[in-house]
């Protein structure tokens, strides 16, 4: 009887893990309070950096293209933000077609003022942002 009860008894496996490290900067340390081995963590990635775009100037338009940025599993990031820089490296607001989060890897900025400009891109995923890319080679939009 006792054996039958014992056979029906649920065996409870409890493993308590306390990991001291909370950020990915260093390896986790663990104290095990029960038999067991190995880590017990869920680790998030860091965002990929943007890669330099290519800009081609037309008549007051500039076409900007940039390489796709991917997560470690190969998935493309959900979007990019584009910035235009003047000759002094100051960020200048871009026109609507290149403003906000862009889900493709190209945009055409219309009505670009005459001058010499560079472009850069930043990958986004949710609330996360990668490092801004290096800037494109300069392009010159001639005065109309």
């Amino acid at each position, binding site marked *: 009887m006792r054996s039958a009860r014992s056979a029906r008894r649920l065996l409870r496996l409890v493993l308590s893990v306390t990991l001291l490290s909370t950020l*990915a900067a260093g390896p986790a340390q663990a104290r095990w309070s029960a038999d067991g081995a190995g880590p017990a963590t869920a680790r*998030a990635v860091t965002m990929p950096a943007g890669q330099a775009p290519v800009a081609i100037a037309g008549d007051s338009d500039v076409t900007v293209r940039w390489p796709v940025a991917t997560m470690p599993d190969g998935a493309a990031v959900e979007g990019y933000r584009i910035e235009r820089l003047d000759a002094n490296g100051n960020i200048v607001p871009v026109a609507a077609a290149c403003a906000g989060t862009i889900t493709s890897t190209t945009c055409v900025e219309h009505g670009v003022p005459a001058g010499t400009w560079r472009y850069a891109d930043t990958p986004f995923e949710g609330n996360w942002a990668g490092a801004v890319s290096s800037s494109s080679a300069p392009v010159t939009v001639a005065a109309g």
Partner: protein
Amino acid sequence: MSGSIGGLYPGLTTHLPLRVANREQFAIVVTSVVTTVQDASPACTAANLSVAPFVGTARVLVDGTAIVELTVTLRRSAPRGCEGATFPLQYQGEARKA
């Protein structure tokens, strides 16, 4: 029980392979595993990560091991503070004699 997962980013759902070892002198059947997630940091709380419980059966022989898969999701709204963060996990399971 031991198991870790990496490669998480906002909105990603993936599977964590959890290794269950049996050190009893008889075979067992694992019937459930519940995971407790701890804060990765003050800027990245446990609420950003969900790990679905395992409910099913997984037989583990004497001195043997088995793998059960847990479904893990990093919330799409996870803040930037979760980038590169590591969540400590704690597993608690139930098994019966096979």
